[in-house]
């Protein structure tokens, strides 16, 4: 019911009547996006500040092959988000036990090795192809910059219960430490979701779950340096004068360190089919420690204290006939609940929270194409006013996306 309607709450294998052949599917999401903070400039180092542009956000092709006892999936992604890139999005091989006749019902047990989406909360595993909103919420993207990681997973479902436990390297795709999909430490992260999914009536479904992630982050060491000379233009006259050349003694290498990090989350989803079409109401809340890997990177070794994150979102989409949908999402993310801003020589507890309100409107041709317009009103404290007090940075954005599926 849900898979056919385009709302697959449980991603994974097909039901017992699987196709006995290769299945090729895919989708393309191409868009124009405009950002208030865009400038025709570059950052130090060359990163572009212009964000008003056409983007191939996702161009994905998935090939899968099913057997009674197993499944292989390979999904490639091409995009131009940070320049042209082609990469493996998912590569999974699974052994299965107990396929169910219902396509919305996972097998009793599925053991997967490879690169797969981490089972944390709802958004991380919810397909980008099915999601109406352009991107996952701010907090979900901060904790898990990319959905997939490399490892092993045991998942499945019995009646209404759902479970998924994964052991992974702990450095998901797109994480900004530079170790994405690698593993700089021997520790493996454990991520799990335990939930339930019930079809209350033929036209209503309710699902929910609790999740956790536990692992260790990595603070890289530094190389040893040789002796050297440094010139400091102390009198700022542009000339090398007496007393401005300093010896720079060599320094020792600094060993890397690791640190503990964790997150817990709870999510709930409700689907209802009326004469108007499908309605979907869902939300999620999480608390975490040292797990921001995408927005304001959490590194307690550098900061000297654990960094607590907190966030939640609530989203609603409503089909209006089969050919139009409207949606609304509010999300809240605080990347550091203990942030202290330095003003007038004092450390003042200050919020760093980011709130985003995202209305959208979409036209669709079911299972073939979507034209979606979304406006993101972002409220944060990334700028300062004339008193030196943090205030909202003007960084709202809108996106017009055309998606085609096969």
């Amino acid at each position, binding site marked *: 019911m849900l898979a056919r309607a385009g709302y697959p709450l449980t991603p994974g294998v097909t039901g017992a009547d699987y196709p006995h052949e290769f299945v090729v599917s895919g989708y393309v999401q191409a868009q124009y996006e405009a950002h208030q903070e865009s400038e025709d400039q570059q950052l130090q180092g060359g990163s572009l500040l212009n964000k008003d542009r056409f983007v191939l956000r996702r161009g994905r092709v998935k090939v899968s092959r099913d057997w009674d006892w197993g499944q292989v999936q390979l999904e490639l992604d091409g995009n131009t988000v940070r320049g042209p890139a082609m990469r493996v999005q998912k590569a999974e091989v699974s052994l299965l036990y107990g396929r169910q006749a219902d396509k919305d019902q996972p097998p009793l047990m599925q053991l997967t090795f490879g690169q797969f989406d981490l089972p944390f909360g709802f958004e991380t595993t919810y397909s980008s192809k099915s999601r109406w909103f352009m991107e996952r919420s701010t907090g979900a993207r901060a904790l898990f910059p990319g959905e997939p990681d490399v490892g092993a997973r045991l998942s499945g479902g019995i009646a209404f219960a759902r479970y998924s436990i994964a052991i992974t390297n702990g450095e998901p795709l797109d994480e900004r430490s530079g170790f994405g999909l690698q593993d700089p430490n021997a520790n493996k992260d454990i991520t799990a979701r335990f939930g339930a999914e019930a079809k209350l009536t033929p036209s209503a479904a309710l699902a929910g779950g609790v999740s956790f992630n536990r692992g260790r982050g990595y603070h890289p060491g530094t190389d040893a340096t040789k002796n050297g000379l440094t010139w400091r233009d*102390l*009198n*700022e*006259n*542009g000339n090398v004068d007496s007393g401005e050349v300093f010896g720079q003694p060599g320094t020792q290498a600094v060993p890397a360190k690791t640190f503990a990090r964790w997150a817990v989350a709870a999510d709930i989803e409700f689907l209802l089919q009326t004469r108007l079409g499908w309605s979907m109401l869902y939300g999620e809340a999480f608390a975490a420690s040292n797990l921001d890997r995408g927005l304001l990177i959490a590194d307690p070794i550098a900061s000297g204290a654990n960094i607590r994150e907190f966030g939640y979102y609530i989203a609603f989409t409503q089909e209006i006939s089969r050919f139009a949908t409207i949606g609304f999402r509010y999300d809240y993310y605080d990347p550091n609940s203990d942030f202290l*801003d*330095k*003003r*007038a*020589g004092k450390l003042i507890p200050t919020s760093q929270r980011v709130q985003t309100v995202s209305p959208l409107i979409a036209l669709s041709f079911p299972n073939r194409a979507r034209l979606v317009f979304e406006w993101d009103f972002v409220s944060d404290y990334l*700028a*300062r*006013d*004339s*008193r*030196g*007090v943090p205030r909202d940075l003007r960084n709202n954005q809108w996106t017009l996306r055309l998606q085609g599926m096969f």
Partner: protein
Amino acid sequence: MRDAQFIEGELPGTAPEDAEDSDSDEDEEDGPPKVTAIETFNLDVFQGQGGKAFRGRVSANASAVAIALEGVDAGYWVIPSGSPDPVTEELTWSAVTDFDVSLRTGKHALRVVAIDESGRAGTQLELVLCVTGRVPDNRSACSPDKQPPRAVISLQWDVNADLDLQVVDPDGNVIDAKHPYSAGLTEDGKAPMEGAVFDRDSNAGCVVDGVRTENLVWNNDAPEGTYRLYVNLFDACKQPAVRFRVAVHRADDDDTAARFAKPRLLRSGALLDLAADTSGERGLFVAEYSF
């Protein structure tokens, strides 16, 4: 300005010239916040200079300082005030600034004003900076009593390649970065007091200095005759192409800095990386100029 917030609009607070008229004995604690000190190592700024530091103090009721530079009329920068000064108990502030290469040469007033938590701004304090250009002018743009050089041939370019200005004087002598004195060295190997001198070999050997300017400067009258000007791409430094301009600036006895700044000859061009030549031969012929 690094780590500062740019805000569009006019600098808040009372301008120094207005404050002198309306000076009153306001209570130190209840009065508007004050900038009590601005410090910097010197008042000279060259176009494109990076990392120039300013620091100072504000009264204890200031939550931030706002800083504006005359000639940059789009807005001002805000920096939160910092920790208290242990001696005066006033709050400190510091700013690290970069100056655009297109900033007009001459005097510019840097104005700083303190702002308290209610948004009330005090009286602006002013520091007059002298912005000098990439073409040496002996600071004549800031001090009318100083004379600019008699002549400068200037080469400027747009990317970090190693480009060299070469000038052949009427006697056929080559003056370039390897032969930086038109009169040659004195008998005891020192720089001569007269004649033209090169100011620098910019980006030499692809060691990037970011200046991308070379000047041949005559502080005395240049010998009469026709000079031929060449530009040689010594090393493209992995750049696909470089665009350049060559200008000749002159000053007669009564010329002002503004007149000196207007080039008497201006030629521009471009060189592809294929044109890189390390042989020491003449580069691309650009122009002839007669003194």
